[in-house]
């Protein structure tokens, strides 16, 4: 009873989400001050060190392992001001971003999913009251900040604010590269309305290729393309002017050429370690490697940036973005638990109508398999990292593959759920509202 009335109150849910983060933040301050084991994420020291370099007129890339846009260091510039409060400014910013993202989720659910307050609050709470999300942002990891940009992007697209959407898309790609996959689904989704309007007057079969191209180059799309490109290129030019080659090197090239040999959740991990390590000279074995792992980007990008948007985008944009992100993360050459946040921010839109919720057996099995897959991998990783057992094969490899298969299974459910929706169903819902 108390729980149901809790979810009827916006104020209660948002207060709880703020309180949750405040408690975590304060606890973190206490732990940092009293224990040599720090609550604060290592990356946060990287960001704040980078901000400090900026404050003395140096490049943020003077800090080792700073692999982000200088904007991030600028965003948390106040952390260089003296005192524990200002040092925590970045974490507060990330936590505020979390809550803001949650608020936008709530609005999107109400406006574009036609939900009542209570349901919308419940599903937004997957993000708002998720301890994992709150922990990540209050420890000072920037992944949560991306939640704001991407959710704002989704909202802008749904609200037909194409210029804003273009700006946010360009910004998000500048910030973290991977959101470029959303360009495909947004572009595909946008077309729907334009052709829909035309369909009324014209016979669909008589359209020539040229007509199709002209129809494809709708004003919304051109707006989106121009704004996103100008934002993306503009930011890059400015950053390049300010920080030169190290900016390109650390924010972009590094991510393209990194070997990712250290153990992580990716199914490719063991293979990458094996094939990147030098072969003993003279003992060259006959089984020459074809370096198939170099083609790893193919299934990843085909699925996340081409196939999924093509088939699903017009049916349901938020769920398509979930499927895209899920595919991108599952098929990526490197995968750590922070990446899970990337798709978690789309769950509130997908879950309400999903098989995972409607069929508790499937849902619980999926959740258990997802958790157990990680536990198995983490256990093997612990044996390697702290006990020094050589668990690379079969332990880590097998649990990585297993976790990958679990993800692929869940992705299949998401895809088939989204595919089963009628075209542009979300838009019909919107018109009613």
């Amino acid at each position, binding site marked *: 009873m108390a729980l149901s009335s809790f979810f009827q109150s916006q104020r209660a849910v948002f207060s709880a989400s703020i309180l949750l983060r405040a408690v975590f933040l304060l606890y973190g301050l206490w732990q940092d001050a009293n224990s040599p084991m720090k609550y604060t994420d290592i990356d946060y020291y990287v960001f704040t060190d980078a901000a400090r370099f900026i404050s003395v007129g140096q490049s943020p890339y003077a800090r080792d392992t700073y692999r982000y846009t200088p904007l991030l260091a600028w965003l948390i510039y106040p952390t260089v001001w003296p005192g524990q409060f200002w040092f925590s400014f970045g974490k507060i910013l990330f936590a505020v971003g979390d809550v803001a993202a949650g608020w936008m989720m709530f609005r999107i659910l109400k406006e574009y999913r036609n939900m009542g307050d209570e349901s919308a609050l419940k599903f937004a709470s997957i993000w708002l009251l998720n301890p994992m999300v709150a922990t990540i942002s209050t420890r000072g990891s920037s992944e949560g900040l991306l939640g704001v940009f991407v959710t704002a992007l989704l909202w802008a697209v749904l609200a037909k604010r194409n210029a804003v959407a273009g700006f946010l898309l360009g910004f998000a790609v500048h910030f973290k590269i991977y959101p470029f996959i959303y360009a495909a689904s947004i572009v595909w989704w946008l077309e729907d309305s334009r052709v829909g309007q035309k369909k009324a007057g014209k016979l669909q079969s008589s359209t020539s290729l040229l007509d199709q191209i002209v129809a494809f180059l709708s004003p919304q799309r051109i707006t989106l393309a121009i704004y996103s490109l100008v934002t993306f290129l503009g930011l890059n030019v400015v950053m390049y002017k300010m920080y030169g080659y190290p900016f390109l090197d650390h924010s972009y090239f590094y991510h393209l050429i990194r070997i990712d040999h250290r153990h992580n959740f990716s199914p490719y991990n063991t293979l990458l370690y094996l094939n990147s390590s030098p072969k003993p000279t003279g003992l060259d074995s006959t089984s020459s490697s074809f370096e198939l792992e170099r083609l790893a980007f193919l299934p990843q990008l085909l699925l996340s940036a081409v196939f999924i948007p093509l088939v699903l985008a017009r049916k349901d944009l938020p769920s398509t973005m979930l499927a895209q992100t899920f595919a991108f993360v599952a098929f990526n050459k490197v995968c750590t638990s922070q990446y899970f946040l990337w798709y978690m921010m789309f769950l509130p839109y997908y879950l309400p109508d999903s098989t995972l919720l409607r069929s508790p057996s499937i849902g619980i099995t999926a959740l258990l398999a997802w958790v157990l897959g990680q536990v198995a991998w983490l256990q093997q990783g612990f044996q390697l990292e*702290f006990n*020094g057992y050589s668990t690379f094969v079969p332990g880590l490899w097998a649990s990585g593959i297993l976790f990958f298969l679990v993800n692929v299974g869940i992705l299949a459910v998401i895809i088939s759920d989204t595919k089963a929706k009628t075209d542009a169903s979300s838009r019909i819902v919107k018109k009613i509202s």
Partner: protein
Amino acid sequence: MKQRITYVVKNPEAFTPEQLVVKDDGTKFTLQRVHAAKEHRITLGLDELPRELSRVFQQWHEFHIRWASSTAYTATPPFTSRVSPGLHIFFTPLKSTPEDALCSQLHDLLSTDLKCSSNASAIKLPVLSERFSMSASSQYFDYLESPVKVIDDFQQKFCKVENEVCGNLTKQLLTAAYVDIDYDTISRAVVLTAAWPDAQGNEGWSEDIELPKKDSTVEIGVLSHEPNSDPEDVQFGGFLTVLGQDSAPKPARFQTPTRHYPLIQSSSSTTATPKLHPLTYTTSFSQPTGLHPTLILSLPKEHLAPPNPSCKLHTHLTLPSYLFIDKYQFNDALFLQSKNLKRLRSIAGATDLEAPDWVINQWGSAALFELAHPPPSTEQKDTASASWNVSIPLHLRYLPASPSSHARVPVPWPVVFWACRADEGAKMAANPFDRVHLGYEALFGPRTRFMHVEPSGQGNGTRQLVEWIDVPVLDTTKTGWVEAGTVGTVLVAFLGLCWVLFGKVGGGQKVVEKGKKKQ
């Protein structure tokens, strides 16, 4: 050629001058059963060297080799300075030095497996003290356990059959505790210095030393360490003999300021031979080492008082490239305190936090830490209570996949010393036993005395000053199906998802119907 041979007697009470005899018109010196530490120093002009060798040295502005044995020994003053076991090379190239000079020399000399691709495989030494301009610019290191191969090769190549000095000396080098070779363009001389903590066996040194050629100089000192009231000076007394000049050992006594001041027990006696301080350290790793080994230095608390208020305890680590230090860990006061560290004073070399070992070109890194020591009050409380442990968290790089589950790698013990203020800094170089280019002096001001803490004579249990750690690696005997398995799984998953995307999947029907009902 100039030779200087010094014996520092371990127990002066058991020594009598009768053990020394000068014969054959002063051209032969004999000593009988003398228990002593020995240092043999040979100075050669470049023109006295075989041309091949002389050319090797002339490629450099300065070139200093420091090789230290991994076998534990007890030092005798003034030979108390130490470097981590292994082969250290400190050098400054000339503008004309070829890029591969270091590596091609090392590959010829030691082994082609050596991790060396160009002069840049060496690390740039930081100079915290600008005025210490005499130090070399770069350091190379390899954990060379035994110089047998080098010495054998050298002997075969350069020692002529009739040259006994060459043959004998190279044989003796095999048992040396450390060997230094120094060259610089200003002196244009090569100086080889080798030191032995004692004679092999229990009999002491019984040696005949002859003048090899008429124009060469051989100076022999048999000395003992004596107390001196000046806190910065060491004093030695004994006998000096110059072969060919002296018909009998001449008594001698001298005192000198010293850079490496022996850490000795305080004593009020003005005559008794100073005794080494009982403070020693041991190095170990907390088990299991995993991928983040923690190096632990243990020192007995009871002896851990600074010998002088200006003294600070330090450790200097020489870390091969498979180990690295994350300098950012050492910014937090609580963290440092929990490890009994004061601060990371300096770190140089391969400090990349992410790269696997096979992409690191440099040999590794060198780090200097200032260590905390227990406050004097706890010292008196419970003297029996054990040791003061200092932990230094290290990280392992990934090593290449190999046909075994683990790769065994050596970690030489670091050196530990008190660094103290010295007012007579400038005069230290006048000490005939001065030893520099050890990798850490330039991190301190010129007015610094180093009082070395002795590593435990037990070493790692087998009297070796080296720890071995097993690094888990990808076992290639088990990876036969990794490539096919990974690629196959990804391919099947990809095709399966394509089928779900493009195929006519049954289960979706119900969802559609329900969706329609809602609308």
